[in-house]
């Protein structure tokens, strides 16, 4: 997560890259969190099954947020060029960057909360 940085002068490629990497950081920390909850590995390998397990173990809101980030990552990686050029950004790099920074902050907050729980779980074992 620390290496997925959006800077004030990041270009479209760097922004897309940072969003994608942030999601994967979150995906992997969720994977670790589920492993600590003894969820079998076949239930945390695919994105959809992992998100479903997060819904079961952590609630609907956590699952919805993670699914929202999954969609965002998919758009960042594959939605070319609509993601950046269509509404609401209309090709405005500053708007796109600002929105991506907010999304990334949300992913970082989510990531940190899983890390915190993992640290507390590993400390109590």
């Amino acid at each position, binding site marked *: 997560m620390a290496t997925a940085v959006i800077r004030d002068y990041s270009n479209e490629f760097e922004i897309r890259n940072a969003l994608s990497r942030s999601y994967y950081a979150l995906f992997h920390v969720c994977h670790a969190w589920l492993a600590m909850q003894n969820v079998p590995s076949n239930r945390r390998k695919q994105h959809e099954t992992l998100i479903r397990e997060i819904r079961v*173990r952590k609630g*609907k809101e956590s699952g919805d947020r993670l699914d929202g980030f999954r969609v965002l990552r998919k758009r960042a990686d594959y939605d070319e060029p609509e993601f950046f050029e269509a509404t609401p950004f209309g090709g405005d790099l500053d708007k796109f960057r600002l929105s991506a920074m907010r999304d990334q902050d949300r992913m970082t907050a989510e990531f940190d909360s899983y890390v915190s729980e993992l640290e507390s779980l590993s400390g109590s074992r």
Partner: protein
Amino acid sequence: MRTAELETVLMDRLKSAGLVAVLNEEKSQFLDLSDGFFAEIVLNDGSKLAATDQIVRNVKEELKEKGVQLDSVVRAVWSVKGIQFIGPARGVSGGLKAALEFEAILESGSRECSVSVEVSLAALNKLREKFALSERVGSPAWVREGDVHEETLKKLVREFLDFQLSSGGTSYWDPIRFPKLELKETAVSYLMQDSKGFKQLQAAIDDFLGNYAMEYSLRDLASRNVRIRDFERVLPDLSSHFGGAYKRGDQFATSAVTLYQALGNLERKRLQQYYFQKVAEIPEQLK
């Protein structure tokens, strides 16, 4: 059976019992797990938990007879009503523990419950570090004057409880069954995170005085007649040590001085303390 059918069955039963009004539809969910179903019923009123739980149990039994597996969670949404400081925590035998005890009242609709939160000594020490109270770090006793403020501790306990209560699904915290919690050091680190600027400057100090750069850093300062303990004059040198995603020589939007000036007083003080602590660790012959 489909998820929608299960939802209809459960909702009809809840409706007949007059419980739909307290159902939190945004947090409740019904999932198909391929080997069975999962239902999470979330209520806005904790006084209706027992009645709801009984309904879900009945449906579970009925489905079991039909060979359908249903896993479930029935829980309530709680919020923190008030927190008070009790004093040093005590063990079962009455002996003092290395922790401070707080009591919190939680409410969910018309139901209230009381929970106890013990702030461990390690957590208190972490807080002391965060508030630049280095002279208090390690002290086993908490004092009202010159230590972390009671109001700050209460605020932290509230945030900790909010965080515990925010989890749903099977990992939710049930304050009625588990009314005792321990607030540990890791929780302080998470709840009171350092600013990005502080983290960047702290990492730059680590790099500046780390194994690879220290010799060069000290030689460079000496050549300019800058004393290592002169923090203000050393600060600009940290600009070229922003690590991680910012490689050396990479363009960086902010200088170490600007970043430092943007910090709050507390973080500035803590950063200085951190720097002097690192300087103190340098072997005397190198200084």
